[in-house]
């Protein structure tokens, strides 16, 4: 009897969730779509554009991790996309809007080559192998004079004719939405299921005929395509960049966005990026101290939300439910 009612409750909750999620999503998208109409400050539009860019990078990083590999070169792949597009536009004079998808494709190909090269490495060995690759990419950028080397690259052609932040804001909003939807559909397709199976046991996966090496290479290609895309967009938006934006620390911060948000959930990296990007904005006066706030957030997540910020609603719910139950029990005993 009790179980029945619990199941019933569950189904009600589920149908509630089914309505609540799309509504929440629609509200969020509407909020960001209407935001520039109310807030004209170029500074906030700039910060939000950057947030969109890094959200895509973090989500695409997480997409690779569902196959059980943890790449530590994602920042470098963003750099590959950015530098390729910038070089094409600057030296060959191609239209930036053409360079961006081209360099995204090139990044995907490089990502698949690296995935092929490292396909026999697993777990920590794969992570460190890709870490070395990322470091190597930065050295290569330093070594070629056309990239500007240590001082960075300047005079990258602008994406649109205008310098108006609002145009770029909408561009990145749309690009981020498209990328996120594409990655979402990818993860919850049969390919995503196969990747998750490989993550759980590559032995079992290949025993039922899954070519695990090929699928791991494929997911590298997909993840790198989107990070290359957004990296290229970043290059033409910023118009100047230096390799330090794509070094190991940058990769590590991408990993932090994913881990803080919650690596087991698709929404995790999105939430993580928004928190880590927007939190320091509340303490903008203390700019040089702002890393402390990010670190503090890390500490809070480590100790109180080991499954990431996405687990916060569930944690709060169970906390209040427990308290509610406690009150009910004390009421009963009181009467």
């Amino acid at each position: 009897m009790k179980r029945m009612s619990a199941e019933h409750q569950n189904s009600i909750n589920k149908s509630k969730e089914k309505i609540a999620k799309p509504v929440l999503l629609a509200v969020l998208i509407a909020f960001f779509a209407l935001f520039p109409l109310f807030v004209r400050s170029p500074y906030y539009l700039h910060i939000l554009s950057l947030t969109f860019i890094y959200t895509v990078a973090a989500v695409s990083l997480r997409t690779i991790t569902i196959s059980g590999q943890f790449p530590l070169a994602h920042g470098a792949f963003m750099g590959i996309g950015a530098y390729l597009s910038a070089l094409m536009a600057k030296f060959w004079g191609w239209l930036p809007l053409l360079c961006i998808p081209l360099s995204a494709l090139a990044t995907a190909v490089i990502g698949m080559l690296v995935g092929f090269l490292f396909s026999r490495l697993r777990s920590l060995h794969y992570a460190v192998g890709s870490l070395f690759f990322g470091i190597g990419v930065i050295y290569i950028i330093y070594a070629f004079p056309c990239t500007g080397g240590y001082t960075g690259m300047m005079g990258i052609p602008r994406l649109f004719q205008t310098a108006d932040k609002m145009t770029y804001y909408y561009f990145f909003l749309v690009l981020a939405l498209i990328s996120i939807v594409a990655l979402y559909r990818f993860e919850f397709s049969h390919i995503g299921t196969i990747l998750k199976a490989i993550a759980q046991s590559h032995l079992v996966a290949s025993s039922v005929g899954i070519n695990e090496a090929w699928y791991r290479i494929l997911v590298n290609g997909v993840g790198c395509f989107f990070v290359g895309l957004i990296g290229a967009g970043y290059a033409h938006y910023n118009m100047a960049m230096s390799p330090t934006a794509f070094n190991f620390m940058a990769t590590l911060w991408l990993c932090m966005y994913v881990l803080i948000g919650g690596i087991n959930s698709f929404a995790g990296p999105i939430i993580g990026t928004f928190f880590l990007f927007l939190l320091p904005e509340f303490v903008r006066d203390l700019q040089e101290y702002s890393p402390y706030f990010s670190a503090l957030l890390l500490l809070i997540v480590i100790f109180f939300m080991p499954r990431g910020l996405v687990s916060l609603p569930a944690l709060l719910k169970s906390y209040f439910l427990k308290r509610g139950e406690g009150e009910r029990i004390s009421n009963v005993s009181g009467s």
Partner: protein
Amino acid sequence: MFLEVKGLTKRFGGLLAVNQLDLTVNKGEIAGLIGPNGAGKTTTFNLITSVLQPTKGRVIFNGEDITYEKSHAIARKGIARTFQLNPLFGDFDVLQNVSTAFYISDTSNLFDMYFNTNKHRRNQKMIMEKSHEIIKMLGLEQVKNVLARNLPHGHQKMLGIARALAAEPQLLLLDEPIAGMNPDEVEAILKAINKIHEQGITVLVIEHNMMMMDICNRVIVMNFGQKIAEGTPQEIRDNEEVQSAYLGGV
């Protein structure tokens, strides 16, 4: 000849785990591979399915040399297997465990997937039907939405078989399917193996439990990496060498 293993040898450092093993499996039979612990039975399976590479020897399946094929290619050619340990996708439920194997034969591409074309929907429906069929046949219907790692041991072993069947094999290799089970569960597994056999799938089963022999047509006995006897279950039971391997030899 359906599956033929010729002179298979695997050396781990100084240890000969499998030594000059010759083995044949005929189409449509249930063959048993028995032997005491450490006789090299699981290593033989790992060599057949390319989880390990042999030091020497050849594996021929349907007249084709598959010794150096990759594991997944061998599975696609029609040899599926279960594992002694770590047999499942633990974070998937029972249905997903079975349907994942079907996805590889799904012909819909990324375009179909993104735009949910008719073809994609049809394929999805077919996969679900086939998965349900297998789950029903093996009696896992009641637990089809339970996460694999939360299943009791008997069901986990059964799910291992279900997942292997989803690869649509001609030859099924079962690695100790009844180890550590209670009599009811053993009976269920034996029945399942018989059902699978009736569908025309050849079975090669490892078991160092002598009980398994009753359902085999033919039994091969290994000890110290070598074949020491071969014959009907009755012959094997009467064989003195086998008896000493089990009783006196250890």
